[in-house]
Each structure stands twice: as C-alpha cells, then as structure tokens.
C-alpha cells in the first residue's frame, strides 16, 4: 500500500475531515507535535472505552472506538450515538445590542427569532463568502448563545472581536463570554430523547427542533439545544466540564449500552448522509450561502434589507441566481472523494466533488459538490473522475437519508 507507513494512512483519514483553516492566528495554536494537542474533559474516558485518538483541529479526538465506522454509523440511526464535540467553541453574546450586533455578521433574522429558538446560520465576509457556519440561539433579547467550528475558532473569535470593538466604539452595548468552562456533547438518534428524559425533570416532548433551554440534567445546569449534525432527532448539551464524564456515563448507562460512544469518522458519514455541509470541504471563504444551498437560512427581512458583510454580492445572487450550486451525487465504482472532477456525459468539466464516501446506511456511494447552474437538476447524468477514470453517476437531491427532526405536527 502506498505510503509504507500505515500510520500515515490513519492520518489521511483525519486530513479528509480536517477544517480548511490551517493558519492559526494565535501562536499558541501552532502544534509541532502530537504532544501539544489539546484534550477534552472526556479524553481519558475515550481511551478507556477503546477510542482511537487522532489529531483534529489541534485536539486529540476519537475517530472511532472498538466498533467499525460502518457499524457505528448504522447504530446511530437504529439506536443512538453520543459524540464528544467539546472541541467546538461555544460562546455567549450579551448586552442590549447583541442582536443588532450579530446581525452585522450573519445572514439570519436574529431579531425575528423567538426567545429560546435558534437556527443554522453563516458568518459572511465582504465578498459574501462563508467565514464559518454556526448554530445560533436567541436565549433572550439580550443573550445569544452560539457554537462555531473547532477549526475556525481562532479565525471566528478574531473576526467577532474586531467587529465588536468597532461596534462598541460607536456606543453599542455588547460583550462576550467564551464558554471554555463548558463541554459540548451531542446525543443523536431515536433513543436520544427517551434516554435524556431519564436525566431531567423538564418535559423534553415540548422542546422542538431548533429550540433551546437552560435546565438541570443529571444534577448540573446545562444548555440544551434540540439540534445536531446527523439528521436524526437529538440534542447538543453544553455541560460544565467538571460534570462531563458523569453525564456521558449516565447517558450510556441509561441506554443500557444501546447508545454508543461514537467518533468523528462516523460523525462525518452521518452528516454526509444528512446532506449537511462540512466547513472546509463543502463551504469555504469563496463560497456564498446561496451557492451552498442555504438561501433558506437568509432571513426574509435580511434579503430585503441586507446589513451583513457581503450583502451586496448575496442579494445580487438571490436576484440573478448563483453561477454554481451544491448538489448531491450517487455514483458507481469507487467512492467519489473531495476534488474529484465532475463531467457531463460528453466529457466537459461541469463541477467538482467537495465531500464523498460510502454510505453505511444506504450501502452505496454518496457525494456532494458544486456544478454549474443549469447542469444541477436532479437526475442529471454525470461522470465522476476517480484516479483518472470516469465512473457513472447522477445528481440527486439531499438529504440522502430522510431527516427525523422533532417538529410539531
């Protein structure tokens, strides 16, 4: 096998999952060796459970445990999975003007969110491209809670801080707190709600997809959002770090082993099946939310008013249509991977794959990527080049696996 060293093969797995941001702004984040990797509160817990630890965005994270990535991915949709996502960055914006402040940086209609609800949004740059995607929640009119990607932490915080300084210098009332004292866990799958209900007195049947609550879970005050990155019903739980291991243990015990610790390998397969973007692959600085198929995330009022970075570019794309669009693919042969070229049936290049792999739940190859507008309709036959050879494929809508978000009927 190429590479001689199989360790390097293991590393290639992480390179495929790694975020695009490889230029840390803070010198402390530059890691010369594995010894400098940060550890979450669950590090020892992962190792004790057979976690295979790999470097990811400056952290030592479990890519999988004793079960295979395929089994883990299937188990999430049949039973459930518990993910350690404490490497992601949670922060709170507070103050009278935190809502108008955030609206200068994201495409969401933050003012229009009811308290206790949130949404996926995109932080944009002056060209309308994506700096990062994020789940934001309006806790109250003076408190917004948001989670950003681990690989974009330094970039995002520097961006927010720079704009916050300018906003405050004009008299705006906003401040922030970065929740490094908390750890984020994600509990996903059909058993997520029944299991979590054992650990809290609050009635979870009243907490719908996108909603947020601060409540006691397993004896500690947690931030709970009914959201996730798998397409399944589930939650992201921000727990004080000193209670993270106890909470993880409690969740696994209450599920009688059906909910399993699940690593980043399966997490990536799950989000791909759900048609969700991975920042750094499917969304980058030069891709706008319109091109990425996230027009729904741009608030209606924002489409009329703008007021966020790059609004002129985005509003024009909403009017004229974008030149490229994100689509899903099925293909035969080897799985299509990032940077594989997409050709039309005549062999003309029409796009590129940005993420792809074998779907454990569908047992076929799935991929997502960008093609020229006009060539993006479902059913369009394409050829995908893998290692120089063309393989048959077709464009399909996403999600590949139907989502099961808990919404009111």
């Amino acid at each position, binding site marked *: 096998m*190429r590479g001689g060293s199989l360790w390097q093969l293991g590393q290639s797995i992480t390179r495929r999952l790694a975020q695009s941001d490889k230029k840390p702004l803070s010198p402390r984040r530059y890691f010369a060796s594995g010894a400098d990797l940060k550890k979450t509160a669950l590090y020892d817990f992962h190792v004790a459970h057979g976690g295979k630890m790999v470097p990811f965005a400056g952290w030592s994270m479990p890519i999988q445990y004793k079960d295979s990535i395929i089994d883990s991915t299937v188990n999430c949709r049949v039973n459930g999975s518990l993910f350690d996502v404490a490497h992601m960055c949670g922060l709170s914006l507070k103050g009278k003007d935190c809502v108008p402040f955030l609206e200068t940086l994201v495409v969401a209609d933050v003012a229009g969110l009811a308290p206790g609800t949130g949404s996926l949004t995109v932080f944009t740059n002056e060209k309308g491209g994506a700096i990062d995607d994020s789940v934001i929640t309006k806790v109250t009119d003076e408190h917004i809670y948001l989670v950003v990607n681990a690989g974009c932490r330094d970039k995002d915080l520097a961006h927010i801080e720079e704009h916050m300084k300018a906003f405050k210098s004009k008299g705006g009332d906003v401040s922030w707190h970065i929740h490094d004292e908390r750890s984020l866990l994600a509990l996903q799958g059909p058993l997520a709600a029944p299991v979590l209900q054992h650990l809290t007195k609050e009635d979870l049947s009243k907490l719908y997809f996108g909603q947020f609550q601060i409540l006691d879970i397993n004896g500690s005050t947690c931030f709970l959002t009914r959201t996730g990155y798998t397409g399944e019903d589930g939650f992201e739980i921000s727990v004080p770090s000193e209670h993270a291991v106890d909470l993880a243990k409690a969740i696994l015990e209450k599920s009688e082993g059906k909910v399993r610790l699940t690593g980043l390998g399966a997490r990536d*397969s799950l989000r791909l099946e759900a048609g969700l973007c991975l920042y750094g692959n499917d969304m980058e600085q030069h891709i706008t939310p319109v091109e990425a198929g996230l027009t729904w995330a741009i608030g209606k009022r924002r489409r009329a008013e703008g007021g966020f970075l790059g609004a002129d570019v985005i509003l024009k794309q909403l009017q004229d249509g974008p030149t490229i669009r994100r689509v899903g693919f099925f293909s035969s042969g080897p799985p299509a991977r990032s940077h594989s070229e997409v050709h039309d049936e005549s062999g003309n290049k029409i796009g590129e794959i940005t993420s792809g792999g074998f779907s454990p739940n569908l047992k076929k190859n799935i991929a997502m990527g960008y093609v020229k507008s006009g060539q993006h309709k479902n059913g369009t036959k394409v050829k995908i080049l893998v290692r120089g050879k063309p393989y048959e494929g077709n464009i399909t809508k996403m999600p590949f696996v139907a989502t099961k978000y808990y919404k009111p009927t």
Partner: protein
Amino acid sequence: MALRMWASSTANALKLSSSASKSHLLPAFSISRCFSSGLFYLKSIGWCFGFEVLEGLKYANSHEWVKHEGSVATIGISDHAQDHLGEVVFVELPEEKSSVTKEKNFGAVESVKATSEIISPISGEVIEVNTKLADSPGLINSSPYEDGWMMKVKPSNPAELESLMGPKEYTKFCEEEDAAH
C-alpha cells in the same frame, strides 16, 4: 473470525509478540487455517501487535503478501494492513492478462474514509483476479490471507521474491513502524 479476535485481544493484553508462550493457541487456530481449496496448510507463527503474520509468505514493506507456489504467485494485503485501513468498501484490481511491475501501483483499496494504492511486490502477468471482491470487498478485512486474496500473477522474475521480507522480518518491521508513532 471470533477466534482470531479473541486471540488478538489476548495477545494485546499480554503484550506478546512471539509465538512461544502462545503455543496452546496454535493448534486451535491452525485447524481454522485448513481450507478446502487445496492450497498449502499455513501455520500461524505469531502475532505482530495482535495481528497475524503467516509463515510461508513473503511480505513487502508496503504491506502486501505473496504466496509463491510453482509458477503462480498469489498476492493480497496483510492483516496488519487491513486493520489500519478499516472496513474496505471498494477494491480496484487490474485486468486479467495485464502486466504488473514490482513496486508499482496495481490497484486501490478504499475504506470508509480513505483510499490506498496497492503496490505489486513482484513483476509478471496477471492470470486471475478475485472477482468475489467486487460484491464482498469486506473479505479483505475478514480474511486477508485467504478469501481476501487479490490477484494471481505469473512471476516474470522469480528472483524478485528474494528481496521481500520473511514473516519474522515483517513482524519486526510492523513493530518498528507502529512504535515510531
């Protein structure tokens, strides 16, 4: 498969890398090594960090194995390799009657998350490929030395086999490679 996994975790727990103290395991395991295709009976010599390295085979430092019987050399990837790779979801093999060259790529193995080229340990003409791998690529994981064989080659230069590693050398090679990380 269950027997191998049990033996593997035992070896890991005991941190053993030679067969001496595990001779009680060999007879039971050896029985499972007999298979009906009439190929040679292979004896497991021991464990490379819990992975199986078989006697009677030659190994490349790119983790392919070769079984030379008369004018036919059967080629696949080692147990150590399949374990690092993870579940195989697709295998790309050469056409029959094509030629392969020592130390050159002859195909690819895809796992859930990564692709790896497979390098031919010898030169020669491909006389047969394992068509079962098209529908069951997982045979490479469950049976890397038997049902997961990849291709049979007529060696054009049998002397090339001399430069490959024997089982003990390969075991040591794996240990050194893993220890370096």
